[in-house]
């Protein structure tokens, strides 16, 4: 990676352009915008040539690390390989050029994608219905909680305003609950890193809307007491929400619907292989048990797939009856959560992945991801503190170095230092300082798409870094040494925000 210090504005020169337009279809109407509605001066956008644009963004891309560059052991993020055929499918003009308000008879191919995905995701998770309208994981959480509240509301049960969230939960869980107008109550983890059932019991009552759980949790541990937890929550009149951020180890092995969860979201950009795009677009479909169907947000695809003509199974039908956006009950629906039906382009990619995996390989996904995580854990526990040694699922957490090299007059190497040093060796850093239960948390998730050779190379580097720390932690303190930039000054960035080109010029 090479440091490149330009912004597109640097190339701007009055009179340059990078576009062509079709010839005018009609004579210009100079009076279309009356003077009082016109802006005073043109916006300060750059004026650049096409060549400028191509070179600039190519240079920018070369300062970026992606899954195609190397291994991304980022805990809770499931950075698996993003297949290329998926991109080809998503770019098909017959999908990409469809207006969202086209008559439903003219978009049966689109509607069949929603119906097929609903069937396949239901098969994998044990839920009954899915909405694809949420655009991301956190958006899915919010939508799921809206469904939860809509259900209580539809039954006239207005006092349920409390939601229980474990202390190990992703930060989006309590934030989504707050946006949904719910009061968050935290349930503690026990010494084994699991939800403490005794701590949970006194929190249950007539004000309980439900509980949000991640299983396996953010420590990579399967919540063994889920049966008892589900029974207790249901008995108290609450619903169980499943945060699907950690679904990958369960694919092909365990279905959240079977564990008593009523509502869940999936991250298509995690377990279902769609690219993260530097932070989006993602897709956060929400699945519900059958009794919650009327509470789904609208619009939602309705209609029966006709399997008989082809004898094929879910998702693979070639003929369907007319699929429409079904009617909804305004008294029961959670409402409208996005412009149309979510990020259709992302849903197409996940569909292609599911068809590539198919019934033959679905049982390999979770177990191989889990094997990869346990393999790294076993081979690195001699150098990194392992607070919870039991078998993990797709991810696990170290609590910093066993020997951080601290000595008289020298600070030891921290988790941040380890993360930054990893960058020098061509690996992305793990998730750090999360979950909050451990001060030096390093959370590692390899996914099933990484080979034994890749894991071995990572393990070697992690050992080498541990040895460096023991010898001279300053090597780590000064890392990274081989990236386009060294560590940025975050404090100044926050104290004196310079957040656009105009600010930068005023500097």
């Amino acid at each position, binding site marked *: 990676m090479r440091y490149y210090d330009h912004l597109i504005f640097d190339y701007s020169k009055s009179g340059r352009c990078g576009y062509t337009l079709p010839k005018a*279809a009609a*004579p210009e109407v100079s009076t279309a915008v009356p003077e009082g*509605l016109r802006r005073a001066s043109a916006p300060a956008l750059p004026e650049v040539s096409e060549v400028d644009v191509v070179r600039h963004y190519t240079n920018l891309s070369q300062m970026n690390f992606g899954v195609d560059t190397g291994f991304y052991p980022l805990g809770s993020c499931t*950075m698996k390989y993003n297949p290329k055929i998926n991109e080809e499918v998503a770019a098909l003009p017959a999908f990409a050029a469809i207006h969202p308000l086209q008559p439903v008879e003219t978009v049966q191919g689109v509607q069949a994608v929603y119906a097929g995905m609903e069937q396949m995701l239901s098969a994998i998770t044990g839920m009954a219905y899915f909405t694809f309208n949420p655009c991301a994981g956190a958006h899915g959480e919010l939508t799921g909680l809206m469904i939860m509240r809509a259900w209580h509301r539809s039954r006239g049960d207005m006092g349920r305003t409390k939601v229980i969230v474990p202390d190990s939960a992703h930060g989006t869980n309590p934030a989504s609950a707050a946006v949904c107008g719910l009061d968050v109550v935290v349930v503690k983890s026990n010494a084994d890193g699991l939800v403490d059932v005794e701590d949970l019991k006194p929190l249950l009552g007539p004000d309980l809307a439900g509980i949000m759980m991640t299983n396996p949790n953010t420590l990579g541990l399967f919540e063994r007491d889920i049966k008892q937890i589900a029974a207790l929550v249901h008995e108290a009149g609450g619903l169980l929400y499943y945060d699907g951020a950690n679904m990958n180890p369960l694919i092909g092995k365990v279905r959240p619907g*079977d564990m008593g969860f009523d509502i869940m979201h999936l991250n298509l950009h995690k377990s279902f292989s769609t690219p993260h795009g530097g932070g989006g677009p993602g897709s956060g479909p929400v699945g519900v048990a059958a009794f919650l169907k009327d509470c789904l947000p609208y619009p939602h695809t309705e209609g029966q797939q006709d399997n008989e003509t082809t004898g094929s199974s879910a998702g693979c039908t070639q003929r369907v009856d007319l699929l429409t956006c079904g009617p909804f009950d305004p008294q029961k629906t959670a409402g409208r959560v996005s412009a*149309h039906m979510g990020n259709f382009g992302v849903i197409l990619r996940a569909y292609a992945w599911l068809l590539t995996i198919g019934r033959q390989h679905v049982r390999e996904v979770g177990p191989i991801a889990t094997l990869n995580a346990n393999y790294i854990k076993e081979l690195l526990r001699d150098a990194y503190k392992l607070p919870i040694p039991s078998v993990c699922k797709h991810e696990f957490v170290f609590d910093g170095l066993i020997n951080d090299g601290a000595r008289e007059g020298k600070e030891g190497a921290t988790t941040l230092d380890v993360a930054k040093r990893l960058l020098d060796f061509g690996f992305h850093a793990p998730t750090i300082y999360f979950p909050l239960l451990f001060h030096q948390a390093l959370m590692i998730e390899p996914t099933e798409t990484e080979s034994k050779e890749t894991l071995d190379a990572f393990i070697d580097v992690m050992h080498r870094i541990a040895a460096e720390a023991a010898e001279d932690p300053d090597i780590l303190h000064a890392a990274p040494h081989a990236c386009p930039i060294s560590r940025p000054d975050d404090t100044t960035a926050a104290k004196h925000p310079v957040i656009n080109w105009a600010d930068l010029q005023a500097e």
Partner: protein
Amino acid sequence: MHPYIPHTPDDIRKMLDTVGMKSLDDLYADVPQEYIYKGDYDLPDAMSEDEIRRFFADLAARNVKMTCFAGQGWYDHCSPSVIPYLTQRSEFLTAYTPYQPEISQGTLRYIFEFQSMVCALTGLEVSNASMYDGPTAAAEAVRMAVASTRKKDVVLIASTLLPQVKEVVRTYASYSGTVIEEIAASDGQTSLDALTAALASGRVAGVLVPNVNAYGIIEDHTGFAEAVHAAGALLIEYCDPSTLAVLKSPAEWGADVAVGDGQSLGIPLCYGGPSLGFMACKKDYLRKLPGRIVGATTDRDGKRCFVLTLQAREQHIRRDKATSNICSNQSLMALWVTIYLSLLGPKGLAEVNERSSASAHYLCDQLVATGRFTPVSSKPFLKEFALDYQGDARALHKALADKGILAGVVTGDHRITFAVTEKRTREEIDCLINYVKEAAL
């Protein structure tokens, strides 16, 4: 074996030995047996690439590609080929959120450029890194208004906003106890008198109005900011960003916050997603702004660099006290829009508006000249306009759909709202007009 799962049987055996287990099933020994799924997964047989191609070609054949005269927040503008070429670069496409700035300067720089361009278009001082879409950005702006004012629980929204914007705003508000009231329109535009009357309650935290509304009318917001600010509320403009090349900016109207959907900046229709929402505000509200923000700083060697900043507002730090639950942005679509705006520049974007507007006025005039349509309003418009049809609007729309023309959006029993962009040729527009003349409906 599978191309995405590289493990050979021998690899699996060796790795199981390392972790001290006999089979992959042992990895799930801690899961109660009753939860291990033993049934058949009802999934299709795994497909090869060519089977996938054929499968999706068959599905695609069940969509009808139409000549698009529909809008309502989603516009068929021209899009340069450079954009998908660059956004598909895998260093952009397959990157995670830029948590490690040392190896994410590409993403951080284009987000900084995106923020700069949103500020340029809106005239406001601060922009975030983008949101999911326009309607959710509007809902977040409403939350922001309530959070920025004290003990006020009402937000006024224009009745002329797009239906999907109103519905998402109402949905979000219904869970947080915010009361949404609509401001009446007169002659198709939000009424200042109605606004002033609604502000008198003293309970209003924010006012959401469109720069170009659902009828395509360019709204005149003269006097709005003064009235809204006198009532201690925030003025939020919902904008079509493409039109900001020529129309008065939110800052010029005196708005505190601007939101909208980036789709009109060359993003493919793609059945409504992905696009992006944008959100900009005055500096005073910087710390109330939801979403990611990228800022400039220097590294240890004094080199200019970019980082995610002001994260103390966000969910991973503040949890339930965060400004929003939003965790990410629509980063790749922000790159799309940034490249689009770079290629078009101020002149190109103005031309897009002029061409679209010329074609829209031509179509409008020709349809009115048939004697079967009357304009809904006499107010000025750019690329979109609503007409009342003397007959059954749905029947006419259906007849044209059968000819492969998406003749606007039916917005009432006798009403159709048309949009025309620079992408429509004279032949396509005349074809629509001729079919309308022929249709005896």
